[in-house]
């Protein structure tokens, strides 16, 4: 005994020993408390006999532990101990019970004790009630998430429910309430229903609680009518009735109609209660069954809501209850206060009745004037609800409310603020917002602050006394919590300032209004000028507003705040590190406006503009150049930046009619007319229809990328291109990956460079039509010529089909406005540095302008400075400014009402941008083509010369072809529904390219698979849609040399939609393309280099970055030596595209590094005839799809693998509206992920692939289209792999790729 005493004392010394702070100290908080303090710190606790010394010691040690670390260590030791003890054979129930309690203790401290779960379940199966109870207790604490074990318990529970001992039945019922899940309800429901009429009231009560749980977890599980519930409600024992009231409360909340008929019953119960007709046992502090009263009042509140009839039935009883409670209330009994509060809440909830509302208002007074914070809090809460029906109520208690605002209790303050929101009207708004601003200063909790700001903004919008007040209020809020002010509001303020008050109806007051508006603008400008000059640190959004207003209206307050000062302040702001680039950009626009308005440009501004002309942000650069540009043409300043024109309407020339002349010219020169989107879609549909009829024909065109012959890309036929390649290069390897913006930044540069562009562009146009024709004839030749080396059975069938295909293409082509020189335009390579002489740069002074910027400038020139067209009809001012904003980004600070217009403008802008007028004809041509390109092929700079291939389904046919250099054949499916496509990866189909690898012969097999001795496909693509890409003997031999043990598999091109050679580089001199070939255990990248200029580039050299995964690098044509550092000295390549230099890189799996490879890089350098050296860094992106290979598998194998494989990822592909059926999805999945289709079962599909060269690293894929696919076209996918990063990789890749 002594020992125990000692132990506990020390325990408390280290945990919580606050003897002096016992309950008496808190009595004033519970003024209505009658009871004496209960929890004491007097230490006399004796551990129960069933706990072993071990555990008592542990508790002691944990109590004494000084740090969380130490405690964790102790518990860890205990857990190991427990595990060991649990695993002992022949564990006695008693010992096990103790161990379970110990585990419970560990669990309480937040440790995982999964090992004890089964033991707890075991313990619950004991017949000894103590063990059983502990078992049930532990199980119900442990098993929330582990439903498998509950399965073990359900049997025990069923048995215990039938037990003769009421206590055992009770334990079972308690466990049910804690653990039951919807699926197990039927297992126990009949017995529980039976127990509802058990003779023992405790059992009935617990059974009601179980019913409540069922109702909560699965309302449909109970097929009970209202009478069944009523029977329970009318139980003779009040405590059972009390529990039944909870069920009624739940029903009243969820399904009030069901129990509306019971209002009289419920009211009569309440009457009985308040008259004290229940057993005295239920009195609590002289109040009759307070909890029952509260429950009934709650129920009545729900039932009477918006229901006059129902409410009328309860008015009387509520009044009565209130009166009864008042007596207790005056005696300071908490329970009575609770009832009183419920009465008020019910009165505010039900259909309003004036008499009741008056009474409630009176009672609320007692709450809010109470000295107890609890009651004041509830009083304020009640008021919040009361004022909705009874606004006068708050007026009475104004003073108290204001007092509560200053209370130290934050909960109370918050609540009072909520009340203020409710009682705000246009008369007290000024005061209330003043109070709130004061309160806002004290708030630290971010969420609360945010909520508060939102509500304050709303109030000031709703009840603003005038615009000026509104603006200054918002300013104050922004000063306190600017970052929390919604962006909308800031725009709103801007709009207000810009537009002022709008009362269009009253025309007489126009003048007065105008004055007022100017007054407002002046006021705003002054306010903001002051804020700016005070140099306080404000959130970004506030700065934007300030800067915008000052930019627009600073001239209005130039007397008080000299513009120069403001400009300097802005300059200072720009240099601050903590503002964003967007804000900086706005600063520059503001400066531009101010310069335009004032005509002065301080030195600081000048310096700043110089500095930021080289900013990393293109937006800022752009604005800087604009400022410069405007300064250079001072005569147009007034026109483009007139003062106060932010809400002028802008008119845009949607048809871009000013370009008609150029279009006409281009058409005359042989360009094809633009096909509208509708037409294109129609064409696509038609070709789709054709496909459905079994004649689906897709034209494959293999146009060369030489200048002269680059006519025949059939974009329109194939729809928007879907290249997965983000091919590009930038200055820096590190930041070069897939950043389109950076591309744009530089991509015009090559176009500016060469005088040699002159030639091809003009000739490109002139030769256009002819080339088309020659192209067609070329195709014709290709398709129909059979060769000597192949066996061919279905030539005629093939010819027919290809004939159809090509004519299809051609007809489409004639409608397609393709570019003559699109490969020139779609330059994706950025010269690392180009040593260009200055005279070559078109726009002097602006050497490093981005393409976009230049275009914008040109647009500006076109629109405003240009001689040709005016795009605006009204007031020709302001537009440059507008343009800038639009071009830069979507978060411009602009008045709201113009946003819409600007959006439209923005779209046009893009088009305009692509077709800027330039001084040089050829550049115009370029741009014009660009435009065409953009129209045909939105936002895709990379894909030129695209050839979309239809995917074939699961047949591998043997195809053989020969040609002198390279040709390809396509695979045909047996059912003839497929398209025989001709593919030429690098070969030119362009007629004019004498030196190119002309396709000589092509054989495409028909339905019957043919084999030849040399070229047999080894079925590498079983089930996987594939093209068989074969070389002729000659190239085979070459490739043999290249790859050593090269076998036919390698040249099985597992085609994706990307079998078009993608252009890596085209800078006017060199053109570089690549294609990926998917061999069974390798990824082969073929790169081809061509000199397309008419001058010879010299000293061409390639340096390849070797990587882990890279196996071989070989050159093919001509064979060149690859130096050990990856360098290939090519020397010269014949000009005009007469010669192709090709090299091959192959990658194979290398200890899982493969799928971490993201690109293959190489550098290319050459010297142009002007002795300038050019460097290019070229990246060929590699994605996970490139590294996957279809893996053949049977459904059963898949099943067993699925279970074995651990790592699972799930994702949903949303909005896949382009996929019409599961088959479409499979086709797409094959294309993207190279999956092997195992089986389609209804709406589901299972597929499989593995990482190339590693059969063990598999990816199991399960896709299912959603039930209501039509409305919500999404596909839920599951994939399982044995490598986590692989899984994640595939998941991300899929999410990205399937979207396209």
């Amino acid at each position: 005994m002594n020992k125990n005493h000692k132990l506990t004392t020390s325990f408390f010394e280290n945990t919580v020993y606050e003897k002096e702070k016992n309950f008496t100290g808190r009595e004033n908080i519970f003024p209505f408390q009658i009871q004496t303090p209960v929890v004491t710190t007097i230490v006399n606790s004796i551990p129960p006999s069933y706990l072993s010394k071990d555990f008592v010691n542990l508790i002691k040690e944990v109590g004494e532990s000084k740090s969380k670390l130490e405690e964790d260590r102790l518990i860890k030791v205990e857990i190991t101990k427990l595990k060991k003890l649990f695993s002992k054979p022949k564990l006695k129930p008693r010992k096990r019970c103790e161990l379970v309690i110990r585990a419970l203790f560990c669990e309480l401290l937040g440790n995982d004790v999964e090992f004890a779960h089964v033991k707890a379940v075991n313990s619950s199966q004991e017949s000894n009630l103590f063990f059983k109870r502990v078992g049930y207790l532990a199980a119900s604490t442990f098993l929330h998430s582990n439903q498998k074990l509950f399965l073990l318990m359900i049997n025990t529970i069923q048995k215990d429910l039938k037990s003769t001992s009421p206590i055992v039945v009770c334990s079972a019922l308690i466990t049910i309430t804690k653990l039951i899940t919807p699926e197990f309800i039927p297992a126990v429901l009949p017995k529980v229903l039976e127990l509802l009429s058990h003779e023992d009231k405790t059992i009935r009560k617990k059974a009601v609680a179980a019913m409540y749980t069922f109702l909560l977890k699965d309302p449909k599980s109970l097929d009970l009518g209202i009478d069944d519930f009523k029977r329970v409600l009318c139980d003779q024992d009040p405590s059972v009735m009390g529990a039944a009231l909870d069920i009624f409360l739940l029903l009243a909340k969820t399904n009030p109609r069901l129990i509306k008929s019971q209002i009289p019953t419920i009211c009569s119960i309440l009457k009985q209660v308040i008259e004290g007709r229940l057993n005295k046992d239920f009195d609590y502090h002289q109040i009759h069954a307070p909890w029952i009263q509260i429950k009934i009042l709650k129920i009545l509140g729900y039932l009477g809501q918006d229901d006059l009839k129902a409410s009328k039935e309860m008015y009387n009883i509520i009044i009565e209850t209130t009166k009864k409670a008042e007596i207790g209330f005056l005696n300071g009994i908490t329970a009575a206060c609770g009832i009183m509060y419920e009465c008020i809440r019910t009165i505010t909830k039900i259909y309003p009745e004036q008499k009741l509302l008056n009474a409630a208002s009176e009672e609320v007074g007692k709450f809010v004037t109470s000295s107890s914070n609890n009651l004041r809090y509830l009083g304020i809460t009640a008021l919040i609800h009361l004022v909705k029906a009874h606004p006068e109520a708050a007026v009475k208690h104004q003073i108290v409310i204001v007092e509560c605002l200053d209370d130290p209790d934050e909960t109370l303050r918050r609540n009072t603020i909520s009340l203020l929101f409710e009682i705000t009207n246009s008369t007290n708004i000024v005061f209330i917002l003043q109070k709130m601003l004061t309160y806002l200063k004290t708030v630290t909790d971010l969420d609360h602050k945010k909520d508060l700001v939102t509500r304050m903004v709303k109030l000031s919008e709703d009840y603003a006394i005038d615009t000026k007040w509104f603006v200054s209020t918002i300013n104050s809020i922004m000063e306190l919590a600017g970052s929390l002010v919604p962006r909308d509001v800031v725009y709103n303020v801007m709009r207000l300032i810009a537009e002022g008050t709008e009362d269009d109806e009253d025309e007489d007051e126009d003048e007065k209004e105008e004055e007022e508006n100017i007054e407002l603008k002046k006021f705003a400008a002054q306010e903001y000028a002051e804020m700016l000059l005070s140099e306080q640190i404000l959130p970004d959004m506030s700065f934007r507003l300030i800067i915008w207003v000052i930019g627009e209206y600073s001239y209005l307050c130039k007397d008080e705040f000299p513009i120069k000062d403001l400009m300097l302040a802005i300059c200072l702001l720009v240099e601050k590190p903590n503002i964003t680039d967007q804000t900086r950009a706005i600063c520059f626009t503001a400066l531009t406006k101010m310069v335009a308005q004032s005509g002065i440009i301080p030195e600081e501004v000048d310096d700043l503009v110089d500095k930021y002309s080289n900013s990393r942000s293109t937006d800022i650069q752009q604005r800087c150049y604009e400022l410069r540009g405007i300064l250079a043409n001072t005569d147009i300043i007034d026109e483009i930046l007139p003062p106060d024109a932010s809400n002028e309407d802008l008119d845009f020339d949607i048809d871009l009619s000013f370009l008609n002349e150029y279009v006409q010219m281009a058409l005359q020169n042989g360009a094809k007319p633009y096909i509208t989107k509708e037409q294109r879609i129609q064409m696509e549909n038609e070709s789709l229809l054709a496909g459905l009829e079994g004649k689906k024909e897709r034209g494959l065109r293999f146009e060369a990328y030489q200048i002269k012959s680059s006519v025949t890309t059939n974009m329109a036929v194939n729809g928007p291109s879907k290249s997965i390649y983000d091919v590009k290069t930038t200055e820096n390897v590190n930041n070069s990956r897939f950043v389109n913006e950076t591309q744009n930044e530089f991509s015009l540069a090559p176009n500016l460079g060469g005088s040699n562009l002159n030639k091809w562009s003009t000739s490109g146009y002139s030769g256009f039509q002819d080339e088309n024709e020659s192209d067609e004839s070329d195709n014709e030749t290709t398709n129909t010529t059979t060769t000597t080396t192949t066996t061919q059975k279905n030539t005629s069938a093939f010819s027919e089909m290809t004939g159809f295909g090509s004519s299809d293409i051609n007809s489409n082509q004639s409608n397609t406005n393709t570019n003559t020189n699109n490969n020139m335009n779609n330059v994706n390579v950025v010269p690392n540095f180009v040593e260009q002489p200055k005279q070559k740069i078109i726009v002097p002074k602006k050497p490093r302008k981005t393409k976009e910027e230049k275009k914008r400038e040109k647009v500006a020139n076109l629109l405003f400075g240009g001689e040709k067209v005016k795009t605006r009809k009204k007031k020709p001012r302001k537009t440059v400014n507008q343009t800038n904003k639009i071009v830069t980004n979507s978060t411009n600070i602009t008045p709201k009402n113009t946003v819409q217009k600007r959006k439209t403008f923005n779209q046009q802008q893009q088009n305009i941008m692509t077709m800027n007028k330039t001084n040089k004809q050829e550049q115009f041509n370029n741009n014009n083509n660009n435009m065409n390109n953009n129209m045909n092929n939105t936002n895709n700079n990379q894909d030129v010369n695209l050839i979309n291939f239809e995917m074939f389904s699961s047949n591998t046919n043997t195809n053989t072809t020969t040609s002198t250099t390279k040709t390809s054949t396509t695979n045909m499916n047996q059912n003839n529904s497929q398209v025989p496509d001709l593919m030429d990866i690098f070969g030119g189909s362009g007629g004019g390219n004498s030196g190119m690898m002309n396709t000589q012969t092509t054989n495409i097999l028909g339905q019957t698979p043919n084999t030849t001795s040399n070229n047999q496909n080894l079925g590498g693509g079983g089930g996987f849609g594939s093209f068989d890409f074969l070389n002729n003997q000659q190239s085979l031999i070459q490739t043999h040399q290249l790859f050593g043990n090269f076998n036919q598999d390698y040249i099985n091109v597992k085609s994706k939609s990307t079998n078009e050679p993608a252009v890596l580089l085209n800078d006017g001199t060199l053109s570089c393309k690549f294609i990926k070939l998917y061999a069974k255990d390798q990824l082969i990248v073929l790169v081809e280099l061509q000199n397309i200029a008419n001058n010879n580039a010299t000293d061409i050299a390639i340096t390849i970055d070797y990587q882990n995964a890279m196996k071989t690098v070989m050159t093919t044509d001509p064979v060149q030596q690859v130096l050990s550092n990856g360098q290939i000295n090519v020397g010269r390549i014949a000009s005009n595209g007469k010669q192709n230099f090709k090299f091959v890189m192959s990658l194979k799996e290398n200890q899982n590094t493969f799928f971490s490879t993201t690109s293959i890089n190489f550098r290319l350098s050459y010297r142009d005839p002007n002795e300038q050296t050019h460097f290019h860094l070229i990246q060929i992106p590699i994605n996970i799809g490139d590294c996957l290979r279809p893996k053949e598998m049977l459904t059963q194998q898949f099943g067993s693998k699925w279970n074995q494989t651990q790592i699972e990822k799930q994702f949903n592909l949303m909005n896949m509206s382009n996929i019409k059926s599961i088959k479409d999805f499979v086709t797409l999945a094959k294309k993207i992920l190279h999956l092997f289709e195992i089986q389609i079962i209804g709406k589901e599909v299972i597929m499989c692939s593995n990482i190339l060269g590693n059969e063990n690293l598999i990816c199991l894929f399960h896709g299912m289209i959603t039930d209501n696919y039509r409305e919500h076209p999404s596909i839920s996918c599951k994939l399982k792999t044995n490598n986590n990063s692989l899984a994640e990789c595939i998941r991300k890749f899929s999410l990205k790729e399937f979207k396209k």
Partner: protein
Amino acid sequence: MIFSVLIVNNRGKPRLVKFYVPIDEEKRLPLVGAIYDVVSQRSDKMCNFFDGNHLENEELKKWGSDIKFVYRHFATLYFIFVVDGTESELGMIDLIQIFVESLDLHFENVCELDLIFHLDKVHQILDQVISGGLILETDPQMIMNRIKEQDDFSKQTKKESKKKKKKKGRRK
């Protein structure tokens, strides 16, 4: 209904954690900690309840929008009830009182250590007061009677099983 009953000591150590709604094991303690953080910062003069919006917790949001916390501070322990709008705040204050009174009756001057040593007993008492989130018993004396009944019954079954064993032993 009542969602959870928590007893936490002044240092934030949980002494009793009971949830009447399913909650993942790993989410229990963080939630308890979050609640303790709020409760422990409130002075004794503040009112005994606060809204769910005082703390950010995803589990809480699952339970509904009108979650309230009602708590009382006794000596070294905080008794915290998490309830929704269907329960009365003042009613809960009284219920905590009843629960503590029952504990006090059982342990005679209940202290924190009692709750640690007699964890199962505390649960047993709580199960009498609240079951499945419902208030079932509000009279401390009644609760004590129940507990006593159960304990007697346990002893009885114990004796019976011992007797059975003895009988078995004799037979052997």
